[in-house]
């Protein structure tokens, strides 16, 4: 039979709170009790009933234990929001803590510790003192935990009142549950303090080991966890400890078992006798296996821990691989972890069985699991040389099933197998090529392309295969583009015939001109340069022997592994991350300690992201980047013929002339004349500043059918009198090619009158086409000169000397300064120089200076709250008419 509390959740139509208030103040006990139940029900579903505080607290003084508990529950939830009213409850608490009934005494202390209100805490000390020495163990065990609660609120108070010593005394209590709670409290306090508070001596150790036999299952966990920090003096002591802990392995409670395993593993480090160690390993296996018949969630925790244990001591479960076979109905998270452990336990002895299992899994329904199973086969092949052939034959069988994602995953792992065993299994390439059309995932495609490129000389139609990918080159993801580029270069080096040569032209063009991916472009330029200067060197570099890989993925760094093993059963062992990687709570260092240990707290809790291991399954080293032997330098370029003959004969070729600052760097240039309006000629251009000079960076692309030559340029009058400082150097452009150039610019030639603006009108002509006109924009910051830095004093003087009418300001509501440093770096790169900063309330105020030609200075004041949108910019300058242009420039700079 069950209760009928659900009625308390139903609400009446009348306003709820006033009605409850009325009932709480009823003269009838039963009605009051029902009302409190309704309040708790409302609290549970998330309604705010804090306004009833006084009325509920009035019900506190009652003989009825059930009602009292409900009121206390209410207090725990709302005391913090009503600290002034909470004081009303203090008297009852103090009185209850002296009640003849131990249950009530304990209840009072337990609840008071949960109310984090200063005024209550003050009154807690005396009752706590009494309860720590109470005759009744139930009260003492509650008081022990209460000390930890108080420490969390006010550590100083705990130390001043001597509660720590009282707590330490409780370790010798004759009641095991009191001992266990005292240990838990001390361990927690120790964890949040940087001072040694709870040190386990050999004396406490033996006391605690004795208490272990008598206390509850949870108490055993507290004690084992605390003891796992104990460092035994020598092998013999370690053996003694282990002997007394091993019986715990038979406990039905999984937490007891895991904590016992943790402690045994810690002590095993010290034990020298191989017999003892072997024996212990034997004893630990069955309990670990038994954990796998618990609830799936517990199985998951156990499996994550077993994953660590088998990395440290593979022998423990070496013969138990069968228990990790997946059941059809296991939850997916259990299956994934089992698979991971199966890979770790796979050996020459059991591989046949394991492969049969993996093959079975590869036909299941869950796609992620199937993929992992296929990948597992590949990892076994890499791990076990003698089994590699069998693994590959299983993979080939799977490929024949023609399930799309199985095929793709198989190809990814086969690429790794080729890396591990070069020149061994290439006979299967033909089978792989059959599935070429079905590949649609980037990683699988990239892997297949890598295989084709790597073994181009053995695949008769390698060029055809690669060509089929080339058509879609611009649409492919970067991963595939990079592989395609490298594979084509390999093909060309291995078969330098006409077909590959054409292919490589297309690829290099695509990868240098039409892409906005800097990685791809850089790699393409390097290949291009290598091929055009020294094909032999290119062969040495691109076709170099690759280092053989091994299956070290999912293998943790030994020191991290040790740390994780000392955290068995905790979150850390489940995440496979050290605790400080996910626990954000900082140690409470006290004032007095801070003087003694200035940075102790900070040091021990400083983030160490470098140690955070990625627990996710990542494929083994799979990059097909050519390995550049460090010692090999490309030979002198002049001595060798240009293999490519792509018109790179002189410096006018814009593409790879390193001597001139011609190769465009950084983001792609904006298109100023699209091909559609330029009869196939597309021009991209932008003003840039480099080495103290303004250049017009331009790129010409000939998408028309005829070669274009005789390019000339002319600039219209503009605010700054910008004009060409030399001849436009553009070679003849064959159809389908492009050229870039940097045109030096000069200032103050043809200055247009009228208000300052950023308009730049340009005319371009060539011998084949009409004259093209287009408008570009002058980026004002291009004009900032390198000598714009001002001394602090100069700045102040200049500021003062300029009249206030020369001060202009503007708000940039959308701009954000996230970090002062990065912003200053960025501004400095555009010749805006930092002078000083100050803090005004929560705002940062930055002072900078800049100068434009003819020595016109700009004094700048930027005001912003870090990380919050909205930047205010105020400037003072002798030429306030330039201010709008200036603001536009600053806004652009802050945005980029």
């Amino acid at each position, binding site marked *: 039979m069950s209760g009928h509390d659900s009625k308390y959740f139903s609400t009446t139509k009348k306003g709820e709170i006033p009605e409850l208030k009325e009932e709480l103040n009823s003269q009838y006990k039963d009605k009051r009790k029902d009302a409190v139940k309704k309040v708790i029900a409302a609290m549970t579903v998330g309604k705010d009933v804090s306004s009833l505080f006084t009325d509920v607290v009035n019900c506190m003084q009652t003989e009825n234990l059930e009602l009292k508990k409900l009121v206390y529950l209410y207090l725990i939830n709302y005391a913090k929001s009503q600290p002034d009213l909470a004081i009303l409850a203090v008297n009852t608490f103090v009185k209850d803590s002296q009640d003849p009934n131990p249950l009530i005494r304990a209840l009072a202390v337990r609840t008071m510790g949960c109310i984090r209100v200063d005024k209550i805490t003050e009154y807690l000390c005396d009752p706590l003192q009494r309860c720590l020495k109470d005759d009744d163990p139930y009260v003492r065990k509650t008081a022990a935990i209460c000390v930890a609660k108080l420490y969390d609120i006010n550590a100083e108070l705990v130390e001043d009142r001597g509660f720590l010593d009282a707590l330490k005394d409780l370790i010798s209590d004759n009641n095991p549950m009191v001992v266990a709670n005292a240990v838990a409290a001390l361990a927690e306090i120790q964890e949040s303090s940087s001072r040694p508070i709870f040190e386990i001596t050999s004396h406490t150790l033996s006391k605690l080991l004795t208490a272990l036999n008598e206390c509850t299952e*949870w108490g055993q966990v507290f004690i084992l966890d605390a003891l796992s920090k104990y460092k035994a003096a020598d092998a013999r002591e370690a053996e003694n400890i282990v002997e007394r802990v091993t019986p715990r392995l038979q406990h039905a409670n999984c937490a007891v078992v895991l904590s016992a395993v943790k402690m045994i593993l810690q002590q095993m480090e010290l034990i020298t006798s191989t017999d003892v160690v072997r024996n212990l390993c034997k004893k630990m296996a069955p309990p670990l296996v038994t954990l796998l018949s618990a609830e799936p969630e517990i199985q998951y925790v156990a499996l994550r821990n077993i994953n660590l244990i088998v990395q440290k001591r593979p022998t423990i479960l070496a013969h138990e691989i069968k228990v990790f076979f997946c059941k059809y109905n296991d939850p997916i998270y259990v299956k994934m972890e089992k698979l991971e452990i199966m890979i770790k336990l796979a050996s020459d002895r059991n591989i046949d069985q394991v492969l049969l299992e993996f093959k079975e899994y590869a036909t299941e329904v869950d796609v992620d699991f199937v993929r992992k199973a296929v990948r597992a086969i590949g990892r076994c092949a890499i791990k076990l040389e003698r089994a590699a052939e069998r693994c590959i034959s299983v993979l080939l069988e799977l490929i024949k099933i023609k399930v799309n994602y199985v095929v793709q995953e198989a190809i990814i792992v086969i690429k790794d197998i080729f890396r591990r065993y070069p020149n061994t299994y290439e006979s299967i390439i033909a089978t792989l090529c059959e599935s070429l059309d079905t590949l649609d995932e980037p990683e699988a495609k990239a892997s297949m392309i890598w295989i084709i490129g790597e073994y181009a000389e053995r695949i008769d139609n390698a060029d055809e295969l690669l060509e089929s990918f080339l058509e879609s080159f611009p649409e492919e993801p970067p991963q595939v583009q990079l592989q395609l580029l490298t594979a084509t270069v390999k093909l060309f080096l291995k078969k330098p015939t006409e077909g590959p040569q054409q292919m490589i032209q297309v690829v290099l063009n695509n990868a240098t001109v039409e892409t906005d991916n800097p990685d791809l472009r850089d790699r393409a330029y390097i290949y291009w340069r290598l091929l055009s200067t020294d094909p032999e060197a290119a062969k040495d570099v691109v076709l170099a022997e690759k280092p053989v890989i091994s299956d070290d993925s999912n293998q943790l760094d030994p020191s991290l592994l040790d740390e994780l093993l000392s955290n068995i059963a905790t979150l850390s062992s489940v995440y496979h991350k050290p605790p400080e990687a996910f626990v954000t709570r900082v140690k409470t260092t006290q004032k007095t300690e801070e003087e003694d240990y200035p940075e102790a707290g900070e040091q021990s809790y400083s983030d160490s992201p470098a140690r955070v291991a990625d627990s996710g399954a990542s494929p083994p080293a799979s990059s097909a980047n050519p390995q550049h032997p460090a010692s090999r330098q490309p030979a002198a370029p002049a001595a060798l013929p240009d293999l490519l003959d792509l018109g790179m004969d002189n410096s006018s070729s814009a593409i790879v002339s390193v001597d001139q600052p011609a190769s465009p760097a950084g983001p792609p240039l904006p298109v100023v004349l699209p091909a559609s309006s330029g009869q196939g000629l597309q021009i991209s251009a932008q003003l840039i500043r480099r080495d103290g000079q303004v250049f017009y960076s331009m790129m010409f692309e000939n998408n028309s059918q005829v070669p274009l030559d005789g390019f000339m340029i002319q600039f219209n009058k503009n605010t700054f009198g910008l004009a060409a400082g030399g001849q436009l150097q553009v070679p003849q452009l064959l159809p389908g090619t492009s050229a870039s150039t940097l045109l030096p610019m000069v200032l103050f030639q043809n200055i247009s009158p009228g208000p300052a603006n950023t308009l730049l009108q340009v005319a371009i002509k060539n011998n084949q086409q009409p004259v093209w006109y287009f408008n570009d924009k002058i980026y004002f910051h291009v004009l900032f000169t390198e000598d714009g830095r001002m001394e602090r004093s100069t700045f102040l003087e200049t500021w003062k000397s300029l009249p206030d009418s020369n001060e202009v300001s503007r708000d940039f509501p959308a701009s954000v300064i996230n970090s002062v440093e990065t912003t200053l770096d960025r501004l400095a790169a555009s010749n805006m120089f930092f002078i000083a900063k100050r803090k005004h309330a929560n705002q940062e105020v930055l002072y900078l200076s800049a100068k434009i030609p003819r020595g016109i200075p700009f004094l700048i004041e930027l005001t912003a709250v870090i990380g919050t949108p909205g930047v205010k910019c105020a400037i003072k300058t002798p030429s306030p008419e330039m201010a709008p242009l200036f603001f536009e420039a600053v806004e652009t700079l802050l945005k980029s």
Partner: protein
Amino acid sequence: MPVAASAVYFLNLRGDVLINRLYRDDVGGNMVDAFRMHIMQTKELGTCPVRQIGGCSFFYMRISNVYIVIVVSTNANVACAFKFVVEAVALFKSYFGGSFDEDAIRNNFVLIYELLDEIMDFGYPQNLSPEILKLYITQEGVRSPFSSKQPLDKPVPNATLQVTGAVGWRREGLVYKKNEVFLDIVESVNLLMSSKGSVLRCDVTGKVLMKCFLSGMPDLKLGLNDKIGLEKESQLKSRPTKSGKTIELDDVTFHQCVNLTRFNSEKTVSFVPPDGEFELMKYRITEGVNLPFRVLPTIKELGRTRMEVNVKVKSVFGAKMFALGVVIKVPVPKQTAKASFQVTSGRAKYNPSIDSLVWKIKKFPGQTESTMSAEVELISTIAEKKSWTRPPIQMEFQVPMFTASGLRVRFLKVWEKSGYNTVEWVRYITKAGSYEIRC
């Protein structure tokens, strides 16, 4: 740190809070919203029971139509947390009389709050034994056969001593007119067989369940025909082991009442039992398992619209025994239209909701065999689908008075200072655990 929880939430399937209890201050009261948003309302639900969101970690378990969610912000003991949830649910069940679901929680929420306050303090699990808690947490609506002799509204005076006592699971002063002990050996056989009939994995997980109605504070000792126990005994008594089958237990775990140190040194199972029903021990056996059934399936796909399924089941336990409630589920493709059957015993039908042919035999005598042959018609699908992945055949059964492991109780001795006589009852039963045959 063995802290198991900073907050505990009970949610229904819609995500409404049924119970919330904050134990520590380090997690905000609104963390449950994060759980709802990032786990319950996403595909994440069910993919991993431990998740980190922001600075907090969430552990969750689903029990019937309720999610129990634990929130922590420290490096908490996860094993402890999950075990706490399991034990707490068992405790609530024992209070509400069996069921644990949304209705039961709503109907008992005051009691649940009271229990939650008692069984965990500041995130540290305390005593969770129903037996002892019932001494002083006695709410109306709760009927328990063990506390009926106590006055209901007043807590027992020495309850607190018993909660914290060394025998924290049994109260003193019990009196029964007739002293009885019921022992149930319940074994689950787990089998994974390949389509070719070879055993891939096979083990037995067994439980010794006990129901005690004994007066006073009795000391019990249990003897089984397990190898180590027998060897140790013959060593101690310097007498050769009696012939007969001995069983090698791979692993044993015991209820907290069993003296583990003594088990470790003397290999005897001795204990002071809790009153009423409890699980004394669990064991696992992998060697020498007697499989009660052999299943021989043949499945032929005849073209794209027809399938022929033949399943032969042989019982291989003693001819005088019989199995009850035998169910064999043979998976068929989703596009199955209908199936016609021929069976030598029991009844078979096609159940589209689980995509399986279900063959039920109420009573299956030992040393016999039975067959089912079915013709399955499929709806032809136009789309070129990948070949059907065949889930394994699953089987359910119960065989009374049979243990797959061969385990037997040799003796159960009861000592009490008053020296009363006890009546002992022993039953055996073997059930199917996950009994899977790939096809």
